[in-house]
């Protein structure tokens, strides 16, 4: 009797303990629970309870019973088993569905057993990348399919760059075939006072609605980079309350760096994509380092300064941080993730939780490395790791039943659960349905695989072999109007500047008057290539204005505006420089419909890198060639030196 009382006490208290609750509500443990409950029911009567209350040593203070006995241990073992699956998942993130169902049957039908040591072959097998990793690699390659860009050191400038990638992928990366949505958004917000950024907002809304943060988990190249660094076997900093609070920091970054600063500077007609300029590590790794690593871009080194130092420092911090903290940039900084997170719950694709099936066991949240509160919330990147650990199969992919007929949904679910009981009871009809579902799945996989491969191969062929650069700089005439026979017409220091005519424009637009630097002999000519969209260009323009007014008798400053810009610079100039001594001209397209500037290219401009300044002496010979922003002192020193030389 004493033993029975003790048993009932344990049941009573276990019933009320938190783990006991999970244990009882979780179907994984329901069998064990049901047995105990039946025994418990035998004693269920008021008299019995009164007797227990009177006789037992149960008190509120002493209410924590020996729950760490059989039940507790069993729960922990089960839980560990789940963890074990997830550990394997770390190596091979998404186990194949069949494997998962086998594991599931193991979980539900067999008592917990210690996992046998994995053989060397199994370990080697676990190195095969998971489906998610393959998709990540695939998308990284697809978005950076311009392989020849890495060889030539030039960025791609074809038509597909007017489309945005879903993930964070810098458009200044030599391999990038499309535009970065965040950079484009900032660029558009810079002009928000003149034009609503409908196109980019529409694209972000569409991506968010279709995929949500599934993009972060599967399609973002920078997410892949971080995950690969996280694979390095070191002690890891797990998510906690501090990281959860920090995860809201990305919204601050989004509002300040992506929205407010670009709009405020846009009002001043200064293009400043603040996030790209001061934070984005994807731009540093893909754009800056991608370009600098090519010998053809050696000319870019002189422009490195405090900004590059800061951004390199930030990049190294993120890289080292991502070794210890899972997706450090995505969780705390990335504004793109913050935008997509807003749509996560209503997106068409991603992870969904069927609430009626959920027992609130918390295994999914425990397993997840992101700072989620529940599956599918704004922090969830839909990596799908929680699907395998859910004991009740309450978590699934949204739209996973889209190719199934209504009567096949149960079959598919049973397939996933792969219950032994259901297998034995399976009728011919059920087997047929199962086979049909499996066959359809296989066909879907094959079709998807073929289409994806065709797309990638097509992209690689198109970007690297078909869409070859046609826009070569015009050949400079060696027999130009040089004064001395020894002078060669060219675009390097010491060369005679080529003859060229560009139309002057003022506040009212083109004037019809042509300007030819070669005809400006007797005066120093400073030719500055700029664009209203280029922050350093706009920042250095006042220097040129100052030089132009200070040395107006001896120096002519020609500001050559880039050809491709929808916003007419005449209005901008009349507003900013109404009484300037500078001569404003506009470049002409290299070819009809081209976005490349002919004069800029002729004067040695590469990769459409702005600003660029060329200084000609009184004889039209190039004395300075700066493919980067200059300082006033630097500029004035050259002018003074040249004027002194002329006086002598």
């Amino acid at each position: 009797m004493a033993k029975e009382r003790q048993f009932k006490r344990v049941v009573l208290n276990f019933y009320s303990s938190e783990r006991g609750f999970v244990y009882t509500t979780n179907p994984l443990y329901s069998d064990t629970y049901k047995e105990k409950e039946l025994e418990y029911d035998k004693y269920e009567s008021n008299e019995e309870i009164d007797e227990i209350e009177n006789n037992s040593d149960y008190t509120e203070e002493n209410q924590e019973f020996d729950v760490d006995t059989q039940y507790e241990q069993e729960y922990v073992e089960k839980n560990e088993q789940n963890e074990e699956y997830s550990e394997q998942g770390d190596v091979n993130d998404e186990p194949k569905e069949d494997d998962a169902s086998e594991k599931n049957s193991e979980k539900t039908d067999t008592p917990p057993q210690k996992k046998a040591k994995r053989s060397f072959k199994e370990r080697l097998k676990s190195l095969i990348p998971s489906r998610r990793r393959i998709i990540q690699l695939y998308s990284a390659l697809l978005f950076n399919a311009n392989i020849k860009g890495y060889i030539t050191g030039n960025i791609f400038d074809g038509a597909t760059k007017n489309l945005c990638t879903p993930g964070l992928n810098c458009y200044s990366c030599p391999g990038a075939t499309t535009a970065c949505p965040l950079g484009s958004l900032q660029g558009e917000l810079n002009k928000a006072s003149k034009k609503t950024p409908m196109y980019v907002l529409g694209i972000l809304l569409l991506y968010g609605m279709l995929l949500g943060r599934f993009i972060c988990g599967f399609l973002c190249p920078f997410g892949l980079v971080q995950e690969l660094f996280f694979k390095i076997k070191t002690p890891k900093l797990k998510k906690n309350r501090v990281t959860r609070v920090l995860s809201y920091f990305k919204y601050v970054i989004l509002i300040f760096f992506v929205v407010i600063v670009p709009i405020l500077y846009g009002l001043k007609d200064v293009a400043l994509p603040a996030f790209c300029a001061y934070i984005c590590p994807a731009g540093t790794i893909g754009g800056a380092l991608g370009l600098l690593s090519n010998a053809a871009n050696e000319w870019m080194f002189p422009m490195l300064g405090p900004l590059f130092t800061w951004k390199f420092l930030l990049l190294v911090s993120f890289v080292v941080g991502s070794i210890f903290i899972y997706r450090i940039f995505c969780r705390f900084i990335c504004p793109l993730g913050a935008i997509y997170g807003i749509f996560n719950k209503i997106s068409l694709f991603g992870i969904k939780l069927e609430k009626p099936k959920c027992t609130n066991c918390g295994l999914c949240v425990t397993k997840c490395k992101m700072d989620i509160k529940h599956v599918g919330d704004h922090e969830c990147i839909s990596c799908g790791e929680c699907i395998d650990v859910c004991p009740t199969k309450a978590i699934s992919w949204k739209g996973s039943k889209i190719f199934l007929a209504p009567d096949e949904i149960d079959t598919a679910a049973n397939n996933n659960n792969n219950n032994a009981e259901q297998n034995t009871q399976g009728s011919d009809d059920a087997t047929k349905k199962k086979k049909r579902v499996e066959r359809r799945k296989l066909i879907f996989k094959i079709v998807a695989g073929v289409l994806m491969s065709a797309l990638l191969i097509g992209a690689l062929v198109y970007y690297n072999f078909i869409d070859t650069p046609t826009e070569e700089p015009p050949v400079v005439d060696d027999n130009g109007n040089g004064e001395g026979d020894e002078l060669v017409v060219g675009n390097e220091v010491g060369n005679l500047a080529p003859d060229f005519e560009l139309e002057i424009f003022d506040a009212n637009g083109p004037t019809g008057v042509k300007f030819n630097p070669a005809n400006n002999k007797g005066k120093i000519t400073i030719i500055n290539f700029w664009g209203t969209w280029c922050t350093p260009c706009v920042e250095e323009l006042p220097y040129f204005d100052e030089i132009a007014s200070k040395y107006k008798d001896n120096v002519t400053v020609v500001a050559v505006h880039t050809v491709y810009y929808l916003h007419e610079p005449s209005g901008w100039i009349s507003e900013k420089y109404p009484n300037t001594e500078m001569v404003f001209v506009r470049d002409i397209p290299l070819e009809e419909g081209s976005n490349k500037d002919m004069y800029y290219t002729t004067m040695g401009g590469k990769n459409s890198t702005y600003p660029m300044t060329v200084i000609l002496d009184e004889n039209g010979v190039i004395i300075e060639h700066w493919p980067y922003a200059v300082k006033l002192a630097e500029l004035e020193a050259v002018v003074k030196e040249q004027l002194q030389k002329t006086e002598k």
Partner: protein
Amino acid sequence: MTKDKVKIIHLVYSIVLSVLCVVAGICLIVGCVSIYNSGDRPFSPEAIGEAFAKIAVPVYICLIFILGAFFLNLFLPNEEKKKASKPDERTTLQNLYKKISLEYCPSQYQAQIKTQRTFRFVLSIAVFFNFAINIAMALVHIFDSETFAGHSAMIDVRNAVLVLLRYAVVAFVLGLVLTYFNKYTLRKEIDLVKKSIAKNIQRGDPVDVISEQEAEEGKFVSFFKNHKKAILIIARCLLIALSVTFIVVGIVTGGMEDVLQKAINICTECIGLG
């Protein structure tokens, strides 16, 4: 080799590797900063190569160790299981409230639970107001005409960030305080609910009251719950239609060409070159 030995080897190796990773990172940062501080302008690939050659050894050692970790894991795997962790307080409480609703808790516990909830509510409101004040002050600073009036955008933005960082730190600390306080009060509430369940079972009082709770839901909530799927489909369709409209209007107004123009011209400052 025994399991414990393997475990120790892995532990030591991972600690060494993490130290090396941090050292390599610091070396890279120091290398970059020293190049900048050297004053040798303009930079050249040779000068940068020379500076980085000095820090190459720790970086290479780190890379070798990373490679070593891969082989260690392959030939001497650590099969140790991770310890399972408990679900968080909110989930636990949610689970417990599936067994008993507040009105069925014994009165002495009910009062205590309500006190805990009041504490949480008051602190949440206080923190919310502090957040609001923080945001307002930050916005005042941002929209002050002097904030971005300087000549260099980089310096202006840096100064603005330094000021805004104070507000962000205050908000972060407040958020942390709220989180930890919530944790503390939730744990207390869990204890109280558990005690209530135990007491009710012993007395034979009802504990399973989910259906009653659901019956009490308001008309709006029940309508939303019943038509959740339809509402979701409509919302999705509307938003997708809106996004497509935005894109079409954007293409017509030249937004697509703006994106192209930005993407094919390198703005050196935008990629951090300078």
